[in-house]
C-alpha cells in the first residue's frame, strides 16, 4: 500500500511518516527544499527520537522516498497510485498542494482514497477538498475521495541534522501518537495508522486541544518571552510563570465544560511542557501571535468560553496581553486597540476586551520595546537591544 506525504517537516516526518510506516505503508514524501529531497532520496530514511516521562526511544524510519514538489509529473503519478495522501505543509501552503493533488486525482481510477490534512486550522480537510475541486474539470473523480482534517497530539519540536552536509536527520518529539481524524469526512474504512482515532465530534477534539494544551503552551511561550526566557522548559520552571500556566490550564478545562474537561490533567500537561529534552523554544511555540490571538483560537477562545460559564479568565487575560506584546513589538496603543477589535473581536472598552487592554497596558508600560520583565506584576526592567526573544509573525 502506498502513501504520499506532502511536507517532510516536523509533523510530516516525526509523526505521519513514522506512523504510516508502522501501519505498513510505503511512504513517499513530497518536499520543497531540493537539498532535503536529495538527502532523503540518497539516505532513504531518518530517525525519530521520542522522549518523555523519563524515557527515550529511537525509531528508525527506513525505505522512504522523496519527490521534489516541482516534479509535477512524478508527484501526480504518485498521487494517482496512492492509497493514502497526507499533508503537513502549513496552512499558508495548502493552496500550493491543491494543483498537484488535482493532477494526480485526474489520472486516477475510481478506488477510494483518504486525504488527511494535518494543518493548524479549524477544518483543513474541507478547505483542501474545495481547493482541489476548483482545479478539477471533472469533479466526478472526487466521489471516492475523502478529504478529512487530522489533528496531531504529538509535539515534534526540532529537526537535528544538516541535509546540506548530507548528515543524518533526527526528529525529536514527545510520545503521544494520537491522531484525531474527522470521522464525518471519511468515506471508507480508516487508514491503517497506529494512534489514529476516528472522531465523531472533530470540532470538539480541536477545541479540547486548543483550549487546554494549546492555551497553556501559548501562556508558557508568551509569558516566557516577556521574562526573557529562550526555552519553554525553562519558562515553566519560573515559579511565577508556572503558576499562571497552571491557572490557564484550569481555566481552559473550566471553559470546556464538565464532560470534555476530563480529557485533561493539568499537572500531566505541565510535565509535557517541562520536557527539556524536547529543546522547544518560546520563539517556535509563540510564533504567529496574530493567528493565535484569533477569536476562536487558543487564548481568546477559551477566555470567552470561560466567561460564559461564569469563570473569570484571569490567567488567559494575562496570556492574551502577553501575546499582544509579542504581536506588536512597538507596543503602540492604537495598533493594539485595533488588533483587539479586528483579530480578537473584543472591544477594548468593555468586558473581557477591557481586561485584556488593561493588562496589556500594565505589561507594556515603562520598559520600552526592548525590555524584559523581572516580574509579571512589577515594573519593567531595562535590557540591551540584543536580549528580547524574537517572535515571528508580528505586526511590523
Amino acid at each position: 500500500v502506498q502513501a504520499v506525504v506532502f511536507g517532510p517537516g516536523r509533523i510530516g516526518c516525526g509523526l505521519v511518516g513514522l506512523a504510516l510506516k508502522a501501519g505498513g505503508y510505503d511512504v513517499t514524501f513530497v518536499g520543497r527544499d531540493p537539498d532535503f529531497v536529495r538527502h532523503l532520496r540518497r539516505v532513504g530514511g531518518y530517525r525519530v527520537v521520542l522522549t518523555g516521562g523519563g524515557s527515550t526511544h529511537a525509531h528508525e524510519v527506513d525505505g522512504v522516498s522523496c519527490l521534489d514538489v516541482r516534479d509535477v509529473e512524478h508527484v501526480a503519478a504518485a498521487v494517482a497510485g496512492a492509497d493514502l495522501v497526507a499533508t503537513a505543509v502549513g496552512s499558508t501552503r495548502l493552496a500550493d498542494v491543491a494543483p498537484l493533488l488535482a493532477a494526480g486525482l485526474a489520472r486516477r481510477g475510481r478506488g477510494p482514497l483518504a486525504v488527511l490534512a494535518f494543518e493548524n486550522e479549524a477544518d483543513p480537510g474541507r478547505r483542501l477538498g474545495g481547493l482541489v475541486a476548483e482545479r478539477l474539470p471533472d469533479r466526478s473523480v472526487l466521489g471516492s475521495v475523502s478529504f478529512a482534517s487530522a489533528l496531531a497530539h504529538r509535539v515534534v519540536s526540532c529537526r537535528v541534522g544538516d541535509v546540506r552536509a548530507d548528515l543524518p536527520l533526527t526528529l525529536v518529539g514527545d510520545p503521544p501518537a494520537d491522531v484525531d481524524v474527522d470521522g464525518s469526512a471519511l468515506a471508507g474504512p480508516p487508514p491503517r495508522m497506529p494512534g489514529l482515532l476516528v472522531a465523531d465530534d472533530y470540532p470538539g477534539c480541536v477545541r479540547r486541544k486548543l483550549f487546554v494544551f494549546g492555551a497553556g503552551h501559548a501562556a508558557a511561550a508568551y509569558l516566557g518571552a516577556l521574562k526573557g526566557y529562550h526555552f519553554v522548559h525553562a519558562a515553566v520552571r519560573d515559579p511565577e510563570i508556572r503558576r499562571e500556566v497552571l491557572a490557564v490550564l484550569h481555566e481552559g478545562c473550566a471553559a470546556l465544560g464538565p464532560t470534555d474537561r476530563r480529557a485533561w490533567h493539568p499537572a500531566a500537561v505541565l510535565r509535557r511542557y517541562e520536557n527539556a529534552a524536547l529543546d522547544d523554544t518560546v520563539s517556535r511555540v509563540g510564533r504567529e501571535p496574530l493567528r493565535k490571538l484569533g477569536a476562536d483560537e487558543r487564548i481568546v477562545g477559551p477566555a470567552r468560553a470561560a466567561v460564559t460559564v461564569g469563570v473569570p479568565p484571569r490567567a488567559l487575560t494575562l496570556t492574551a496581553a502577553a501575546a499582544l506584546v509579542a504581536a506588536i513589538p512597538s507596543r503602540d496603543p492604537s495598533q493594539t486597540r485595533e488588533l483587539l477589535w479586528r483579530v480578537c473581536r473584543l472591544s477594548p472598552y468593555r468586558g473581557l476586551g477591557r481586561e485584556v487592554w488593561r493588562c496589556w497596558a500594565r505589561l507594556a508600560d515603562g520598559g520600552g520595546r526592548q525590555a524584559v520583565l523581572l516580574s509579571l506584576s512589577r515594573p519593567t526592567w531595562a535590557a540591551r537591544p540584543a536580549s528580547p526573544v524574537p517572535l515571528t509573525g508580528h505586526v511590523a
Partner: protein
Amino acid sequence: VAGALHAQGAHIVNPFPVSLACRDKVITTALLQAAGLPVPETRVTTSPADVAELLADGPVVCKPARGSQGRGVRVVRDADQLAGLAHAALPGEPWLAQRYQPADGPDRKLYSIGGQVFGVERVWPARTYQEKVGRPFTVDETLSDLMGRCGSAVGGLSLFGVDVVESGGIPYVVDMSSFPGFKGVPDAALRLADHLYWTARNSAPLAPAVPV
C-alpha cells in the same frame, strides 16, 4: 582547564581571555577608563605612602588588585588608617587606590545575563543575608547603556556584574566581575541555565543535542 579548552577553539562563556583580564582590577579599570566610562580617579600602588598623598583631597578606597566579594576593601580617611592597610596587603602585590565617591543612596549592583540587565540595591558593607540579597530596582536606560558599554569595553562579556556608586548624579563604575553571584536577581539560576543552554545550542555545529 578553560585555558586549554580555549586554545583548542572551544566556545566558552565568558570568553577565556576576557575572564582572565577581569580577574585583575588594574586591567579592568584601565579598560573601563580607556572606553570613557565614569571610573573614580584611580592610582595603582604598592606603597601606603602613595595613598597618603591622595588623602590630601579626601578619603580613598583601597582594594587589592585581585580581590573579590569585598575582601580587603577599606575606606581610608586619614593617615592613621594606612598602617592597617599595609598589614592587610601582600608584599609586592599592587592595590588600587580610588577616590572615594560619597554615594547619593545605596550601592547599586548591575547584572547582565545574556544582555538582559538586572539591578539590585544593596547597603555596604552587607552583613546579613537579607542585606546581601538587597532590593531589586528598575534599571533605567542610562544604567542599561552603561552596562552595555562596560561589557564591550572589556571585550564582549555576556555574564557579568558591575558595581555602581551614584555620586552627585554620576554613576561611577567602582568594580566589575566576570562571573558574579547574581544575588538578588529573581530566578537567577533559571535565567543563567536558559542563557547557557541557548548559547551552547547556537554554538555547536550539530546543536541541539539529540536526547539519548
